[in-house]
């Protein structure tokens, strides 16, 4: 803001500076300092060691697995999120409130519980365990389990982002498209999608960030087999527990890079969405 508030409604200067100071100190201590620490630790042994930790086969395998899990979880939740938001925003049906509540479930339960659910379902002692074992299908302590846990934890992001936007827009434009002769798919691609694209992209970015960074749920179902079922966050933990601080922080800096990219994308999307004529203002989910 360029315009200063008139003095009658503004707090006195000392109050203002104290408030700003507290906020700033908090941000520095809890956000900036740790980030700086991660980077400095990662580079403590020099650039060569930094690259060495990243190029190491187990780290590479962890990176691949993280990318794979995200590559499956994000599109899956994209499809689900659009379907769920569409049905909640545009139709009236029984159980709508229940569906809304269920979508929030992954936010409500601890990620560790989310992981345990899958262990209880698909683990050896679980409901489907014996059947899966008999058919030689491995889900827990294998890649499918990690993907499932990731999908579960990132389930609400896109749907939650879209629902308020679609509810606000109502069904008028879709109805207008129908009276003009557009089919369902044409209406979706030419009318609905352009109206929700920024909210959708925003949801995808958040969903992706969470999918790559998820620790708790994945940790429960992973089994921590190096080079096989380790994702990046799990790999960081293992390295750290082995007192391999430089390697741990080097891999951690990869995740940090992802966080920064996410923030930049998020800011860019918000800027674009605001600038676009008539685009709705988005709300953050959490």
């Amino acid at each position, binding site marked *: 803001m360029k315009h200063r508030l008139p003095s009658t409604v503004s707090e006195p200067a000392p109050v203002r500076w104290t408030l700003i100071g507290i906020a700033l100190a908090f941000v520095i201590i809890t956000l900036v300092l740790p980030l700086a620490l991660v980077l400095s630790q990662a580079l403590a042994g020099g650039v060569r060691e930094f690259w060495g930790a990243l190029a190491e086969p187990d780290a590479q395998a962890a990176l691949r697995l993280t990318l794979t899990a995200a590559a499956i979880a994000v599109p899956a939740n994209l499809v689900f999120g659009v379907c769920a938001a569409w049905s909640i925003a545009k139709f009236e049906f029984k159980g709508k409130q229940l569906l809304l509540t269920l979508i929030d479930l992954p936010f409500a339960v601890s990620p560790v519980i989310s992981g345990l659910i899958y262990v209880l379902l698909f683990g050896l002692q679980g409901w489907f365990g014996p059947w899966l074992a008999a058919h030689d299908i491995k889900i827990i302590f294998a890649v499918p389990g990690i993907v499932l846990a990731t999908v579960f934890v990132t389930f609400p992001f896109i749907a939650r982002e879209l629902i308020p936007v679609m509810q606000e827009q109502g069904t*008028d434009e879709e109805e207008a498209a129908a009276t003009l*002769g557009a089919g369902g798919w044409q209406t979706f691609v030419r009318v609905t999608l352009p109206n929700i694209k920024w909210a959708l992209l925003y949801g995808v970015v958040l969903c992706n960030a969470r999918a790559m960074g998820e620790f708790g749920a994945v940790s429960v179902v992973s089994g921590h087999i190096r080079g096989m079922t380790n994702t990046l966050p799990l790999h960081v933990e293992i390295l750290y527990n082995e007192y391999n601080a430089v390697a741990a922080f080097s891999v951690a800096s990869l995740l940090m890079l992802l966080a920064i990219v996410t923030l930049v994308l998020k800011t860019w999307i918000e800027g674009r969405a605001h600038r676009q*004529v008539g685009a709705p203002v988005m709300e953050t989910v959490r």
Partner: protein
Amino acid sequence: MSILIDNVSKHFVGFRALSHVSLEIPTGGLVALLGPSGCGKTTLLRIVAGLDRQDSGRILFDGDDMSRIHTRDRRVGFVFQHYALFRHMTVFDNVAFGLTVRPRRLRPGADEINAKVCELLTLVQLEGLAQRYPSQLSGGQRQRVALARALAVNPKVLLLDEPFGALDARVRKELRRWLRQLHDELHVTSIFVTHDQDEALEVADTVVVMNAGRIEQIGSPVEVCEAPATPFVREFLGEVSLPRAEAATLVRLPAKTPSPEVFGRAAP
């Protein structure tokens, strides 16, 4: 294209929106569905368009039962109260939408679409605004874009849901005269919904007065004004006078929410 509404009923949860409504609209007619809010007039319009489904009864266009025909195949032009323009498209793309979504073999060429859109924008007096976005237009301009968009597909029926409801009094009066003229030029069978007695009497050939999901009276503006069929019609129209009749000779009582425009209007 004549429209026959045959014994149509519709329930929503907890209330009866329409009960056994029958109405016949001749080709080229301009009919107003007039009534207080909640009387079922918009529901009836949406059922004619296929945007809602009736529980029982039939809708016939030129004798063909439309009940199982999807909105997109009914060839109705629908104008929404809040315009429902595609907000991410320019005025041009809005008007062209109905043509560009046609299957490839039925789609006109780019030149033809261009010519058609220009012709329509001239018709609604918005020639210079083709590249604007809806948010850059005034309410009256938006509603005219909505009308041009509806007309682009050569609809056999034009349905208007409170087309001037969201506009201020002056623009509303201008637009309704203009709509009447437009109808006289195009002769598209049209139904429009309104709760404004003046609007219905000034624009329509036939006024259908509705209340609580039923039709109270069908008649010309003169008939419904001078010979109200029920106490409801008498009360609902009692406060207004015929716009084109000898307004000066009739006693003008204050309308429910009188606008200065209504009082200030000179007798023609």
